[in-house]
């Protein structure tokens, strides 16, 4: 079997039980929530007498025991049916699919920026541990790490959208602007700057610290002394050897932070009125739409699993010691 296929199979074998637990958990949540699908149907349709309600429950299988209901729930899910969103009056799956791309774009850009700027500044700080630059960047990142993303978003709105009027205040693109092609992309880009900055800043600080701390540990390794003895230039030691080794834990952290970033996007999207997947979660709770909330939870679990899979693949490419499939 090719190593890549066996790698995917092994990952699937660990991901399936995890997804099963999430599934059971969300079913329990559905059971604990007050009211069922019939209740929300009755609430929408207006008048129905008790007999009709009981008949509807029987038709939808809701008068059966929890075991039967769980079987129905799981088999519908297996067919890709996430249920009916009572708030949007549409299938949950279609609402989620419509909202997911915006959030994936937001998270992707934020992760990329946080990773590149964070680890670059981490190298600047870690190249000379204890120097002024190091202490300045380390203290700065500690302060930045304490800033909640949604509040940073509001502050950025006050500065760049209200006072300076450089950037739009919210939304994902100008309403009915009629823009196409490059002009539309530039418009979306301008709308993304502030939300991406508020989402990425915490992770930028985290990756900076991680890179810097790991580098200051690696400087003490004997192999660095050997490189110095061989007369390698300082820049070459910093970039090719110390930084390159220090970036590996940062990449692991990229995967670990995927779930946290998805959680952060809930508030950031609410601040900037971005019609994304994260805001959907808040809307589902506010509008008491339990099936939608469960769909969001299940899809975010799947997203996190896929992101971690990709990170592990990238890790194997970068570190020959953990090549996939061996």
């Amino acid at each position, binding site marked *: 079997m090719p190593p890549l296929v066996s790698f995917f199979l092994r990952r699937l074998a660990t991901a399936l039980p995890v997804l099963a637990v*999430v599934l059971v958990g969300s079913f329990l949540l559905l059971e604990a929530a007050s009211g069922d699908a019939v209740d929300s149907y009755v609430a929408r349709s207006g008048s129905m007498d008790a007999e009709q309600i009981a008949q509807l429950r029987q038709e939808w299988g809701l008068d059966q025991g929890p075991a039967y209901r769980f079987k129905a729930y799981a088999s519908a899910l297996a067919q890709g049916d996430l249920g009916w969103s009572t708030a949007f009056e549409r299938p949950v799956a279609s609402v989620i699919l419509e909202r997911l791309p915006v959030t994936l774009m937001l998270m992707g850009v934020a992760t990329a920026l946080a990773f590149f700027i964070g680890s670059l500044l981490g190298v600047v700080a870690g190249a000379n541990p204890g120097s002024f630059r190091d202490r300045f960047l380390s203290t700065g990142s*500690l302060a930045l790490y304490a800033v909640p993303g*949604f509040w940073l978003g*509001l502050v950025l709105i006050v500065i760049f959208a209200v006072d300076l009027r450089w950037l739009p205040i919210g939304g994902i693109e100008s309403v009915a602007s009629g823009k196409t092609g490059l002009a539309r992309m530039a418009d979306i880009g301008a709308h993304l700057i502030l939300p991406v900055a508020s989402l990425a800043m915490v992770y930028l600080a985290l990756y900076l610290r991680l890179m810097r701390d790991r580098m200051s540990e690696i400087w003490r390794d004997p192999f660095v002394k050997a490189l110095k003895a061989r007369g390698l230039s300082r820049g070459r030691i910093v970039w090719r050897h110390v930084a390159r080794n220090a970036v590996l834990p940062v990449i692991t952290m990229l995967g670990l932070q995927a779930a946290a970033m998805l959680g952060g996007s809930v508030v950031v999207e609410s*601040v900037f009125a971005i019609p994304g997947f994260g805001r959907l979660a808040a809307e589902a709770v506010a509008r008491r739409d339990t099936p939608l909330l469960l769909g969001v939870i299940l899809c975010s679990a799947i997203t996190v699993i896929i992101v971690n899979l990709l990170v592990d693949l990238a890790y194997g490419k970068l570190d020959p010691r953990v090549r996939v499939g061996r």
Partner: protein
Amino acid sequence: MTFWRMLNWEGRAGAAVLAVLLLMALLAPWIAPGDPLAITGEPMLRPFASGAHILGTDRLGRDVFAGLLHGTRTTLLVACFSAAVALVIGSVVGTLAGYLGGFADTVLMRITEAFQTVPAFLLALAAISVTGPSVPTLIFAISLGTWTQAARVTRAEVLSLHERDFVAAARTLGMRPLEIAFREVLPNAFGPTASLAAISVAAAILIEAALSFLGFGDPNRVTWGSMIAEGRTVLRAAPYLSIVPGIALVVTVLGVHLLGRGLSRTERLQP
């Protein structure tokens, strides 16, 4: 003051900040008596414009300083309790998984992984949607998403202690496995788990703030998150209404991080 002398400057700064916050929380009913949600003056007074309202008033004429003080209570209460609950759940699950091993370990770790796969904030949101918002349910909802790290750390520590002599001695004494796990192994494995306390408290503060910012906090209490949300409606006219409680949040979280870093350094110095 040996505790103070043990800390480095980071730890001291953090401890000082948290001490001030604790005082603010304890003395809030005396410094700013009465209901902080009550209207006490003219709406939208600017900060430092009136002696009666040092930090001004919000859209409805509620005192910002009083809200800030009483908000400290909610923040510290929810954050400390949910971090404690998360550490307790995490160390119990981690001890069981690490000590029992085998099938129990696999099952417990898959459950832990499942909780890690769903964003902590979404878990808290989902729990709140079922239970409704109040301080106890907030504590439960937040700890639901933050116990996993403690479980992993405890499990790793328990695995490393498993083959030590004192465990073998307890076994020869005839102690039952669960008794050994919780009376002998867990107390020895708790150190590394306790060092997660600062991270857990900081995470809980941020989750609570975000929840109440979105309007899912306890409606009968002032919180910094709800003050930021309230100020957001008049962001153009009075940006300070959102900015001031946010600064309080940043200072608190920074204080927790600083104290945590200071404590972990001293632990390394004194084995």
